[in-house]
């Protein structure tokens, strides 16, 4: 009953979206604003409707309606309530529904803004948003219906929404349960964040397409979508960081980033999105890069859709691969149409998007931004070629050759180094005109500080070239950024007579975009410290220990004490080792690396015991064990220096993005308020 209701609502939403698309196009063609308004209402209806369908699905999940095949495949009686809810996005059909729900939330929100000044954009924004919504709805309705039920027919069991002839419904008493790998807090938040990032890029794309269709080539569309883009970027960054954290905690290979095709699929829109965030500033300030910004936002949207396609169609094999499904061809059709239309539209308007100015100096801020964009594109090209290389190789040689992390690391490392360096230089270069001399004058103090730091690192005994270069760059960029802050705060304090804190607060408050950006830069610097630590200084060892034996790594001693094996109430068998950790003879505590074996899914999971400090992580994995613990267990031990800075930097970055995206007071509202106040003052006078 509830399932039928949910499905019915999805179909209704699909029809409403189709109507909205038609009404918007008709309205703009015939010049009848009422039709556009009606399309807008249709779009506003999608979110409440999808929410109803989503509510039905969550109800089925929570109440254990295992006759619904999706519920059966992701939940079980033993699972706690919060997992039953979050298993909503634990499988293909559910996560597509979840995706649609988020997408409709964003597209509905965008119609709620005031459109007075941007009427001409409205119909096209509606068309682009609703086409995307309708496409995903079609996927769910025709191919991946989360409301399908089990039926017993004379020839066997089938999954279908409508009852097949001569069949009876089946009501299983328990479900298969959520994939154990997904029962981690990081995994519960990681997909929603990533999806939010993905879907919110639809909005700037919709505005860009609207600008192209209407031929309004000023930077209005960029100003309108700046905050949307930042929000999209925020969620995408958050999704990537959380995904890394999940991998580190759960996958048990001692790292957080494996250059897996699906990770890269999420990383690629992040790269083009980051490039976009930077280059739009040039268009706003100098009227340059108009075409480039269009290219970037179209690319970002296409990469979002392409990434989703890669993850879900099974074209590439990956640890993230969803079950093979029939959505591939339809997805492909959508991608083809969107890519071709966008490209055609872009080329059609190419001449109108002529830049309004010129670049005058190689070292000016705008040309440094151009280099920044080129570097981001370079990394994107590396990632993209790595992702499709297996396909190309299979086509040409018949053998599927996958490129591994070493390829990506070697190819992108110099580009990342370049980006880090630019991050240091660019904030101090001037708009319009900059020379070596002006730049040198601005940079010498922070550069000096960074050289001092380099000396200290050398004194500490670091000799690896990569690490020295990395730490110098980190120090350089951090000191430039802090110097920028410091200089501006001091200047303000001197000018206004405020104390330093007030000066800092007001400065950052007045220029949230700028200082939010610098804060993000600092976050990246902190992350870079962690990445240098784990990439260059990670050590590992492995050994089979009898009880009482020890293994040593990086000054730590890990002593194996005992192993317990027991059944946990949620259907898993746990082998949990107890090891003592000490360093330089000082006892630091015990760790519990364990191996969980889930009976229902026959899936083992290795959960590390981690001792985590700002300086380093000691990461102990239980690799193998024998039933009798006296025979010993095999441990793999990783020493991951500085890795925590990756997470700290991630949090810092998110904080910076929030600062940058925090809504300003609307200038129009402000103006109206002042006018009102003045009028009031005049009247009372």
């Amino acid at each position, binding site marked *: 009953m509830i399932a039928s209701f949910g499905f019915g609502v999805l179909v209704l939403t699909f029809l409403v979206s189709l109507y909205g698309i038609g009404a918007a196009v008709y309205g703009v063609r015939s010049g009848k604003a009422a039709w556009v308004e009606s399309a807008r209402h249709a779009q506003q209806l999608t979110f409440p409707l999808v929410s109803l369908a989503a509510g039905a699905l969550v109800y089925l999940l929570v109440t254990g309606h295992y006759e619904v095949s999706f519920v059966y495949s992701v939940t079980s009686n033993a699972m706690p309530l919060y997992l039953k809810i979050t298993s909503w996005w634990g499988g293909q059909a559910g996560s597509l529904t979840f995706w649609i729900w988020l997408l409709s939330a964003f597209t509905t929100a965008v119609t709620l803004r005031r459109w007075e000044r941007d009427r001409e954009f409205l119909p096209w924004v509606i068309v682009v948003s609703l086409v995307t919504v309708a496409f995903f709805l079609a996927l769910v309705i025709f191919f991946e219906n989360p409301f399908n039920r089990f039926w017993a027919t004379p020839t066997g069991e089938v999954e279908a929404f409508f009852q097949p002839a001569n069949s009876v419904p089946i009501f299983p008493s328990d479900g298969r349960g959520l994939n154990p790998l997904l029962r981690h807090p990081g995994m519960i938040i990681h997909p929603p964040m990533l999806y939010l990032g993905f879907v919110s890029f639809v909005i700037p794309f919709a505005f860009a397409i609207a600008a192209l269709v209407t031929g309004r080539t000023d930077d209005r569309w960029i100003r309108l979508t700046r905050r949307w883009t930042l929000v999209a970027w925020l969620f995408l960054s958050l999704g990537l960081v959380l995904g890394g954290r999940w991998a580190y905690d759960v996958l048990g290979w001692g790292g957080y980033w494996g250059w897996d095709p699906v990770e890269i699929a999420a990383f690629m829109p992040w790269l083009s999105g980051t490039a976009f965030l930077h280059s739009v500033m040039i268009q706003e300030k100098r009227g340059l890069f108009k075409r480039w910004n269009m290219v970037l936002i179209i690319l970002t949207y296409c990469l979002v859709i392409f990434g989703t396609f890669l993850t879900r169609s099974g074209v590439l094999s990956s640890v993230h691969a969803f079950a093979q499904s029939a959505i*591939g061809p339809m997805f*492909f059709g959508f991608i083809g149409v969107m890519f071709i239309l966008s490209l055609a539209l872009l080329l059609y308007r190419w001449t109108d998007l002529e830049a309004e100015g010129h670049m005058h100096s190689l070292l000016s801020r705008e040309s440094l931004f151009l280099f920044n964009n080129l570097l981001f594109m370079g990394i994107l090209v590396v990632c993209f070629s790595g992702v499709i290389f297996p396909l190309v190789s299979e*086509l040409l040689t018949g053998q*599927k050759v996958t490129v591994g992390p070493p390829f990506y690391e070697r190819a992108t490392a110099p580009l990342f180094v370049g980006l880090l360096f630019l991050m240091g230089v660019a904030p101090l270069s001037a708009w319009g005109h900059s020379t070596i001399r002006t730049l040198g004058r601005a940079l010498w103090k922070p550069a000096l500080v960074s050289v001092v730091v380099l000396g200290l690192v050398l004194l500490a005994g670091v000799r690896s070239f990569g690490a020295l270069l990395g730490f110098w760059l980190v120090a350089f960029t951090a000191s430039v950024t802090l110097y920028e802050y410091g200089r501006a705060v001091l200047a303000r304090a001197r000018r206004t007579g405020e104390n330093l804190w007030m000066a800092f607060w007001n400065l950052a408050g007045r220029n949230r975009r700028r200082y939010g950006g610098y804060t993000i830069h600092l976050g990246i610097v902190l992350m870079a410290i962690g990445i240098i630590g784990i990439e260059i200084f990670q050590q590992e060892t492995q050994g089979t220990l009898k009880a009482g034996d020890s293994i040593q790594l990086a000054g730590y001693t890990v002593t194996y004490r005992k192993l317990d094996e027991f059944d946990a109430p949620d259907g898993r068998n746990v082998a949990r080792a107890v090891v003592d950790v000490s360093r330089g003879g000082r006892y630091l505590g015990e760790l519990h690396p364990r191996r969980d074996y889930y009976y229902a899914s026959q899936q083992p999971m290795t959960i590390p015991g981690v001792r985590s400090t700002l300086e380093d992580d000691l990461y102990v994995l239980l690799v193998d064990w024998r039933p009798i613990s006296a025979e010993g267990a095999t441990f793999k031990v990783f020493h991951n220096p500085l890795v925590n800075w990756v997470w700290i930097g991630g949090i810092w970055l998110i904080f910076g993005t929030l600062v940058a995206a925090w809504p300003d007071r609307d200038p129009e509202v402000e103006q109206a308020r002042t006018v009102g106040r003045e009028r009031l003052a005049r009247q009372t006078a």
Partner: protein
Amino acid sequence: MDRGEVMSVSETTPRRLPTVVIVLAFVLLLGFLALIAWGLRRSMSGPISVGDRVPDIQMITFDGQTIHSRDLAGKVIVVNFWASWCKPCEQEARELEEAYQYFKDSGKVVFLGLAYVDTEPNSKAYLEKFGITYPNGPDLRTTVSQMFRIRGVPETYIIGSDGRLAAVKIGPFQSTQEIIQTIQPLIH
């Protein structure tokens, strides 16, 4: 002509995009789409199903011997995917060896074991533990398991003497008898 002049020229007449560039952009995009379409078709063609001809399987055993399935034409080939970390695999390990011994003298059945995503010492220890004597080797670059698109281990694929896939078993065999009964009808 100095550079300033070029700039002023481009300022006055908006540059039209050369047709070559437009064509090239579309060719690149269509080429990319074609590649993806081809990859999609490959992935949609799905696993080899029962009755399909099985392409040549190449494996290098832990003893360094290279085996090609095409050299074994006319025999029934039992391809078993396993791993030392896989608990359910242990349930059928001894049974597979017993079935191998049962058919060994007939010379009509070949057993091949492929270790899926495993380390050599662990694999060898596993083979020793269960006394397995038929040829075993790692599935290098998971080529063979990709060919069959296995979903996990253990899985067993039995190729008939005509070179076509005759039977598939997902999960462990329950008994030696079950293995023998699956293979017996395929021997001519």
